[in-house]
C-alpha cells in the first residue's frame, strides 16, 4: 500500500517542509490569513487542476483548460454586462458551455481516434479565438452580486478568511476524491489509463468514460473561469494564458504519472499549494523577481519527474516475484 501513497507522501512532505521554512524566515507567515489567501489565490488553478488530474489519469491531456477559463470570463462579462442576464443564470450557462465543449473534444478523441494532444490544442485555439471575437477589451463586471459574493467568507480571528473561491476549491477536491476512489466512473478512468485495450476487454465503457473525463475537465475549467471572473471582476480574452501548463505541473508535482493510470487527486491539491507557496514566498521576500517562481517550479517539476522514474524502477524490480504466488 505504501507504494501507492509514496508520491503523495513526498508531495505533502515538500509542502509541509516548504511551509515551515517560510514560517522560519518570515514570522507572519504561519497565520490563518496567509493560508486563507493561499487557497483563495490558487482557487481557479486548483479547480482546473482537479479536472486535469482525471484527464491525465485516463491517459490523456487537456490543453484547452486555460483558454476555456479565459473564454468563460469573457462570456460572463458579455452575458452579464451586455445582455443583462442575471449572474446566476450566466454561471449556469458558462458551466454548461464548458462541459459541452469538453464533451465535444472527448467525442472527437474517441470516435475519430485522434490524439488528445492535437484535439485539445485545436480546442485551445478555438476557445481563445472565440473570446477575441466576443471582445478584445477587458470588460469590467459591475453587477452587485459580484461584490456580495466576494464578501462571502468564513472569517477567523486574526484576519484570516476562507473566501468563496477557497471553499469552492476545497469542495471540488473533496468531491473529486470521492469520484476518483469511490465510484465506478473513477475506477474506469484508472482502468483506461492503465491499459485501454485491456480495459475494453474487461467491459469498461470506453466511449462514455472518455467523453465523461473531458466533459468533467471542461466543466471544472468553466467553474475555474467563474472563480477567476469573481477574483478579477472582469472578462478578458487573454486571461489565464498558460494556465493549462500550471495545472499539468500541479498534477505532475502531485505524483500523478503523465502516462496515466497512477496518481491521486489529493496529490494535485498538494501540487497546487506548493506552486502557490513559492509564489507567496517571493511576494513576502519582496526583493526577488517574480520569475524566480518559474525557475523554482521548473526545478521542482524536474525533481518530481526523476523521482517518479526512480519509483517506477523500484516497482518493476518487484515484478514477477514468484514468492507472491
Amino acid at each position, binding site marked *: 500500500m505504501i507504494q501507492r501513497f509514496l508520491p503523495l507522501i513526498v508531495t505533502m512532505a515538500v509542502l509541509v517542509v516548504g511551509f515551515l521554512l517560510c514560517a522560519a524566515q518570515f514570522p507572519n507567515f504561519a497565520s490563518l490569513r496567509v493560508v486563507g489567501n493561499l487557497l483563495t489565490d490558487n482557487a481557479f488553478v486548483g479547480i482546473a487542476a482537479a479536472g486535469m488530474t482525471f484527464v491525465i489519469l485516463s491517459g490523456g491531456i487537456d490543453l484547452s483548460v486555460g483558454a476555456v477559463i479565459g473564454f468563460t470570463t469573457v462570456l460572463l462579462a458579455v452575458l452579464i454586462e451586455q445582455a443583462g442576464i442575471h449572474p446566476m443564470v450566466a454561471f449556469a450557462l458558462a458551466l454548461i458551455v464548458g462541459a459541452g465543449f469538453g464533451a465535444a473534444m472527448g467525442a472527437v478523441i474517441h470516435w475519430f481516434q485522434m490524439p488528445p494532444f492535437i484535439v485539445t490544442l485545436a480546442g485551445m485555439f478555438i476557445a481563445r479565438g472565440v473570446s477575441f471575437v466576443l471582445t478584445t477589451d477587458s470588460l469590467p463586471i459591475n453587477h452587485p452580486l459580484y461584490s456580495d459574493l466576494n464578501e462571502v467568507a468564513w472569517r477567523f480571528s486574526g484576519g484570516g478568511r476562507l473566501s468563496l473561491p477557497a471553499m469552492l476549491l476545497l469542495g471540488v477536491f473533496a468531491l473529486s476524491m470521492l469520484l476518483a476512489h469511490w465510484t465506478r466512473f473513477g475506477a474506469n478512468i484508472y*482502468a483506461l489509463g492503465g491499459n485501454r485495450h485491456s480495459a475494453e476487454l474487461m467491459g469498461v465503457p470506453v466511449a462514455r468514460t472518455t467523453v465523461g473525463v473531458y466533459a468533467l475537465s471542461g466543466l471544472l475549467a468553466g467553474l475555474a473561469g467563474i472563480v477567476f471572473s469573481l477574483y478579477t471582476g472582469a472578462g478578458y480574452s487573454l486571461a489565464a494564458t498558460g494556465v493549462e501548463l500550471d495545472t499539468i505541473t500541479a498534477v505532475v508535482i502531485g505524483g500523478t504519472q503523465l502516462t496515466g493510470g497512477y496518481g491521486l487527486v489529493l496529490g494535485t491539491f498538494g501540487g497546487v499549494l506548493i506552486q502557490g507557496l513559492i509564489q507567496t514566498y517571493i511576494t513576502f521576500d519582496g526583493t526577488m523577481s517574480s520569475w524566480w517562481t518559474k525557475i523554482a517550479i521548473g526545478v521542482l517539476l524536474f525533481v518530481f519527474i526523476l523521482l517518479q522514474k526512480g519509483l517506477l524502477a523500484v516497482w518493476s524490480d518487484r515484478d514477477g*516475484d514468484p514468492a507472491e504466488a
Partner: protein
Amino acid sequence: MTHPHAPPLLAIRGLSKAFLGVQALDGVDFTLRHGEVHALLGENGAGKSTLIKTLTGVYQRDGGTIALCGEEIAPRSVEDAQRLNIGTVYQEVNLLPNLSVAENLFLGRQPMRFGLVDRAAMRRRARVILDGYGLSIDVAAPLQRFSVATQQIVAIARAVDMSAKVLILDEPTASLDAQEVAVLFDVMRGLKARGIGIVFVTHFLDQVYAVCDRITVLRNGRLVGERRAADLPRLDLVAMMLGRELEAASHRLAQPEEIDDSRPPLVRFQGFGKTRSVAPFDLDIRPGEVVGLAGLLGSGRTETARLAFGVDRADSGSVTVDGEKTQLRGPREAVRLGFGYCPEDRKKEGIVGALSVRENIILALQARQGWLKPIPRRRQQEIADRFIRLLDIRTPDAERPIQLLSGGNQQKALLARWLATEPRFLILDEPTRGIDVGAHAEIIRLIERLCADGMALLVVSSELEEIVAYSRRVIVLRDRHHVDVLRGEDVSVERIVASIASESPPSPVPPSPVAEVRP
C-alpha cells in the same frame, strides 16, 4: 460430472468463417462437456484462434450453429459472450496492472452501497474468491506486484466469477515456469470438479496429456478429429496435427554431398540459451551444410533462430566463428560476422513496405557498410537488377514499392537482401510460409544452390517434407529444448514425427554432434 443424456455444455456444429475469400474455418464441429478440460490443438493457420474469437463474439460466424446447454447462441461482443457465461483468459494477461487485485476482480461490477463503491466489501469478497484458488495475497496491492502466474489466476478467477460455465484458456501457460504451470493445473482441476467446461489451447503436448480429458485437432480450418486423451498415443496426435500419413514414404529429394564432420565448423554454439526462451544447446554448422530445425509451433524453433542471429541476447553459452570466440551482442554484430537472417513474419520484421524493391534489397548491405558511406545509385541498381534476375523476382522494375509484390516475391527480395551481403551463415525462418507452390519449389532449389556454393544454412520450417528434402542434419525441438539430432538415413518425416512425439523428459543438454568431434 458428465451427464450422458443431457445436452452437452457447448456444441458447435458446422462452423464456418472466411476472411477475404480465405476459409479460416470450414464446417468445424466442437463439443465441450460439463466438467471436462478439452484441448484445442493445431499448427499455425489451423483455425484455433478464429474458432475462439467466433465463440467469444469478436468475429461473427458465416455459417453453422453454436449451442450452449442446448440453446443456440450468437455472441456479438466480448461482453455479450460474458453474459452468456463464456469467459476467456489470454496468454497476455488482459488485466490492469495499475489497479489493485480486488479492483481487477470487480471492475465494472463493484459492490455498491449508498451509490458509492463499497471498497471494504470488495476487498472482503475478493479475499473469499481467491481463497477458493488457494491464493492468499494482499488484494489491495496493485496487480503488477505479483507474478504472471498469480495474475493469470486472478484473470481466471474474474472470468469464472463472472461467467461460470465455459472457460477458454488461450495459451495461458506460455510464459509460466514448471512450478507455476502446476499451480495453474490445480486450479483447472478444481474448476473441472465444479462442472465448468474448460477449452485449453496450448502448444505443449506434455501439458495436454497432464490435464486434458479430450483433444480436438484442427488443421487448415478443418476438423481432423476428436479423441479421448487416454486413447490417443502421442505419435498419432502429432500426425493428426501435422497432417502426415505415416505410412506414406517420404524420400529425400536430393542427397547433399558428404561433408567431412572432422572439418572445423564455421559457427559453433556451445551451451547457448536464454532463460524462458530456449534451453542451452550445442550446435555446429559447417560450410555448405544445411541444418533443419523441426518442432511444433512454440517448441523454440524461432527462438533458436533469433538467438543465433543475436536478435535476442543469449544469457548462457558462447559462440565461436572460424575458431574464434566472439560476442554476439546484436544483429549488427551478427551482420559483421557474415550472418544473415530472414525472419518468419516478413510483414512485421522483414520488408519495409513503402520502400522500393531496390531499397529493400540493398538495406542490409548499406547497414553493414555504415550509413555514412552511401552505396552509389548505379551500384544499387546493378545489385538490385542482378538479384531480380538471379532469383526471378517478378516485378515490373526495381523501383516498385515492395508491398505491391506477391508474398513469394517479397520473400525472394528478402533473401536477396541477405545474399547481397554475401553471408557465410544464413538463417531462414519459414522461408516458404504463405507463398505459392511454384515459388515454394524455387526457394528450395535456391537453398540447395546456396549451400553448394559453400554457404552454411540454418532453416526453420514446419513443412517436414521440405526440411527432409534439403537438410543434412535435422535438429528436433520440443518444449524449448533441442531434444534430438537426426542425420544421414535418419533424416525422414517419420523419424522427425516420432522424435517430436516421444515422451522422454527433455534432457538439459541435448545429444550433440560436438561430442563426436571432440577427442
